[in-house]
C-alpha cells in the first residue's frame, strides 16, 4: 500500500512536470521587465526593478473635438476624410525631475493605435517628476535591426499591416492610411486613397511635455496624454497633397513631422 502511495505521488509530480514542460518557449513577455525575452511565447518568470511602481501611459486620441475612432468619417481641413489605419511607435520613455535627472523605461517600444488606450511602460522609481520625454519613432540602432529577430506579436516584430519598410530598411514610425473625398460629393471614396508613412532616422521626433506627476504608493501612477490629430494635419492640403513615404514627398513629410511635436499634451 505504501508502494502504491509512492506511485500516486510520482504520477502527480510527473503530471505537473510534463505539463509545465509542454508549453511553448518560456520567458518573460512583459517588455517592461528587466528580463524581457522578445522570442518568448509563454509568459513566465518576469523580473522587475526593485523599489518602483508600475507606471502606465494612457493615450486619449481626439479629432474634431471628439474621440478619434478609426474608419469613421471626419472633416480634416475642410475635406471629408476616413482614417482607416492610424498607428505610431513610441519609445525611450523618460520621466524627468525638477533637477533635470531622467528616469527611463529602457527597452519599451509601444505601437500605439486609437483602439487601445492603456499601455504599460514599466516600473519606475518613487519620486516627484515634472516632465515626460519620449520619442515618436525608433532609435537608429533598433530602427535598422532585423524585425525577424522578434516574435510576431512583439511591437518590433512583423506586423499586419506592416510597420516596416524593406526598401529603406527601417520601421515606419507613423503610418496613416485613409481616403478623402475626391469627387466633391461629401463622402470619402477609394479614388481618394492616401498614405502618410513617416520613417527614417531623420524623422525621429523627440517629444518633451511638462507633466507634474508623483510616482508612489497610493497614487494613480498613470500618465494621461491627449493626442490631437487636428494639430497633426495643420497646414496639410488633404484634397491635393496627402501622400508621402518620405522620399517621394519630403515637403509633406516635413510638415507632418513638425506637427508631431505639437500634437501631444497633458490630459489631467
Amino acid at each position, binding site marked *: 500500500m505504501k508502494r502504491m502511495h509512492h506511485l500516486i505521488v510520482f504520477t502527480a509530480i510527473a503530471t505537473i512536470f510534463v505539463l509545465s514542460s509542454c508549453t511553448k*518557449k518560456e520567458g518573460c513577455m512583459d517588455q517592461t521587465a528587466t528580463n524581457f525575452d522578445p522570442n518568448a511565447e509563454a509568459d513566465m518568470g518576469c523580473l522587475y526593478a526593485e523599489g518602483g511602481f508600475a507606471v502606465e501611459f494612457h493615450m486619449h486620441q481626439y479629432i474634431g473635438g471628439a474621440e478619434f475612432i478609426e474608419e469613421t468619417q471626419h472633416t480634416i481641413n475642410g475635406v471629408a476624410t476616413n482614417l482607416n489605419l492610424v498607428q505610431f511607435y513610441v519609445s525611450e520613455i523618460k520621466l524627468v525631475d525638477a533637477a533635470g535627472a531622467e528616469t527611463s523605461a529602457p527597452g519599451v517600444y509601444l505601437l500605439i493605435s486609437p483602439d487601445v488606450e492603456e499601455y504599460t511602460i514599466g516600473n519606475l522609481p518613487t519620486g516627484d517628476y515634472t516632465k515626460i520625454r519620449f520619442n515618436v519613432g525608433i532609435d537608429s540602432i533598433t530602427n535598422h535591426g532585423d524585425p525577424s529577430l522578434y516574435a510576431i506579436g512583439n511591437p518590433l516584430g*512583423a506586423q499586419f499591416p506592416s510597420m516596416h519598410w524593406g526598401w529603406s530598411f527601417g520601421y515606419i514610425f507613423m503610418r496613416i492610411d485613409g481616403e478623402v473625398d475626391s469627387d466633391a460629393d461629401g463622402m470619402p471614396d477609394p479614388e481618394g486613397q492616401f498614405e502618410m508613412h513617416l520613417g527614417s532616422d531623420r524623422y525621429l521626433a523627440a517629444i518633451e511635455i511638462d507633466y507634474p506627476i508623483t510616482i508612489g504608493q497610493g497614487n494613480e501612477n498613470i500618465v494621461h496624454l491627449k493626442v490631437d490629430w487636428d494639430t497633426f494635419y495643420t497646414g496639410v492640403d488633404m484634397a491635393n497633397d496627402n501622400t508621402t513615404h518620405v522620399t517621394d514627398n519630403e515637403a509633406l513629410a516635413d510638415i507632418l513631422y513638425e506637427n508631431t511635436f505639437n500634437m501631444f499634451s497633458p490630459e489631467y
Partner: protein
Amino acid sequence: MTNSSTTYYVCLFIVGVLLISCKKDTLILEEPAAYVLKVPAGFAFPEIPDDNPLNAAKIALGKKLFYEKALSVDSTISCGSCHKQAFAFSDNIAISTGVANRTGFRNTSSLANIAWAPEMLMDGGNPTIETQVYVPIETHFEMDFNMVLLVDRLSANQDYVTEFKAVFGKGPDPFGITRALAAFERTIISGNSNYDKYYHQGNNSALNASEINGMNLFFSPALNCSGCHSGYLFTNYTYQNNGYFSDYSSDSGRARITLLHEDAGKFKVPSLRNIGLTAPYMHNGEVATLNQIIEQYKNGGTSYENQSELIQPFTLTITEQQDLINFLLSLTDDELLNNSELAE
C-alpha cells in the same frame, strides 16, 4: 485484478499519455552537417552570418520557398517568376510584372553571386539577403503580401510545418522564412564562364583572340571599365552615376535612401558576369544592347551633375568594339543555367 494493480496501471497510463501528448513547438535538433559552398576558383569564400549557417535541409527549404507562389498575395508569382535561371536569375524584360500585372520602376537584378554582395538592392537600401526577403513579399507592385499573413499561410500547410520544424526546430516564422530563402540564394553561384576557365583555371584556349583583345581593352587605362567593374565579381559595389541618362527625377537611386542630393542618379555598380543574358540594361531596363551602352561611354556620358569622374570619352575601332563585346559575352556561365540544384 486487484484495486492496487488497477491503480498501478492507471498511473502508468497517465504518465505514458502525458509523455506522448507532450508536443513541444520547439524541438531540440541535432546539429546538421554543415554545407560547404562550392566556391569557384579565384573567388574568396563569402561571409556567412553567424545566425544562418548553411546546411542541406535549410537550402532545400529555401529553394522550395524561392519557387513557392504562395509567397504572393494571390499565389500567382514566386521569387523565381522574375529571377529566372535562364537569364542568370534576372529577367529578360525591362520591368518585371508583379501580382495583378502591376509593374514597379526597376529592372530585375541578377541574383548570381549575391552571397558576396555587401548590401542589397540597386540603391543599397537593405543590408542583408535575410532582411531583403521582406521587400518583394511586402511591396505593392511585387508580391503585395505580408509577413504575418505568410506565416499563417505556411503554418496551415503541414508539409511546411514539418520541414520548418526539421530545420529550425519550430514551425514557420519570419526568422525561418528569411534564413531559409537567404541560404538558398547564397548557393546561386556563377564562376565557370570561359573567362574563368581562361583566367582562373589556366585553360589558355578558353578565350579566342577577339575575346582576349576585348579583355585587354576592358582592363586598359584608356577604357578603365575595371575602375568600377573590378575584381572577380566585376563590381566594386560602390554607388555611381554612369552618365547614361540626363534625368533621374523618376528614380533618384541612392538618394532615395540617403536623402542626399549628391547621391541622386547613383546606383550600385552591377556585376558584369552573365551580362549577355541579363538584357535589357540599366536601372530601368531601357537599354536593349551592349552596343548602346558602349556608345554612351565612348561619348563620356551625359555630364549629369553627379556623373562619376571615371566616365571619360574614349575611342574604339569597329573591330575593337566588337572584341570588347565578345569579351563581355565570354562572362556567360552556362553551368549556372544548367545547374539542376538551382532549378525549380
